[in-house]
């Protein structure tokens, strides 16, 4: 049965029709057209779908859109401001923290969450934090470098 849901996405209030079973990731991609959030495994393993809900990183393939009614959601599209990349995005570019780029939106969103409460993470802390984000290209080395550099840059 369809109902409508209203939430804040990237600072703007949005309303859309959803079914009870509609996942947040599908609401973002199909209803709002925000296709930066990817569906990788669709089984809450890979982290390509990571977004922030009320300031915390979550896997948007494992939360219902209706659960997010009234919530503040941030996707990868919400990071850059006025055409300037977010420091974490810039760090991924500078350090070549990607190859195919499919996992990158989730990696960046996860990394931004880490940096918010751990401004200077060690390599070990970054690797542990990225447990829920899989990359099948890079071997993670440059991703870890990017996250460390991005966290530093976020402190200004």
């Amino acid at each position, binding site marked *: 049965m369809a109902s409508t849901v209203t939430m804040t996405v990237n600072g703007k209030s949005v309303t859309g029709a959803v079914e*009870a079973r509609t996942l947040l990731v599908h609401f973002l991609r199909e209803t709002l057209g925000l296709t930066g959030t990817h569906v990788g495994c669709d089984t809450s393993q890979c982290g390509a779908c990571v977004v922030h809900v009320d300031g915390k990183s979550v896997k948007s393939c494992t939360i219902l859109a209706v659960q997010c009614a009234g919530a503040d959601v941030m996707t990868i599209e919400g990071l850059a401001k006025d055409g300037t990349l977010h420091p974490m995005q810039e760090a991924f570019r500078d350090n070549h923290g990607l190859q195919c780029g499919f996992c990158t939106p989730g990696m960046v969103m996860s990394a931004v969450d880490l940096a918010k409460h751990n401004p200077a993470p060690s390599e070990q802390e970054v690797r542990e934090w990225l447990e829920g984000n899989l990359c099948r290209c890079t071997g993670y080395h440059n991703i870890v470098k990017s996250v460390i550099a991005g966290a530093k840059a976020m402190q200004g």
Partner: protein
Amino acid sequence: MYNFEYHKPTSVADAAALLAKADDAKLMAGGMTLLPTLKQRLAQPSDVIDLGGIAGLAGIRKEGNALVVGAMTTHAAVAHSAEVKATIPALAHLAGMIGDPQVRHRGTIGGSIANNDPAADYPGALVALGATVTTNKRTIAADQFFTGLFETALDAGEIVQSVSFPVPEKAAYTKFRNPASRYAIVGSFVAKGPSGVRVAITGAGPTVFRWKEAEAALAGSFTPAAVEKLTAPSSGLNSDIHASAEYRAHLVGVMTKRAVAAAG
């Protein structure tokens, strides 16, 4: 995922009323097990009752010599809580080893214990620490709560509200993780506290169990050496592609020895 009616009650009483009225309702806490189950069409509930709108079900507080954790408290909240780290650091450590950061932001203690996955971490903590589960109907001792594979003592209309952990003198949790899922292939929670020395094993059998032989040995001497020579029986333990029953039995000993060492 099959469709369902979604409800987000604001009180436990309303949630219980919805549960009683619906044909085949499921309660949803963090949804970290329920949603993947629904996505695979392994369940088709008529109604999903989201407990996320009930104020007061999440939170951590000290009550006398016990730490009380609300059912909707997330693993991340337990892992980062200054109160938990100060009183039962082993519990914070356990919560910080569940899944990955994103799962820990959603998954809850109430959901974990009500689901009673054989490889879940929390059942070990509840049994080893001699915890008490408070529901909307009664209190249940941890020893009576976990009854079998994905089975608990909870009645159909019963909702977990909080878990009370007596603060132990010392405790530690060690697990051998499945490298992909992070679930426990074997986890051992050892505690020395108000209810004596307890060793609770998760992941190894159909549900959490106490390793009484190790408890007796540790009651005499709470040292890794006391359990060094013990061998857990492999009969009745899980055997799957990840580990045979014999290997799990071996890990029970190794994890317990390491947990005792970590507890100090």
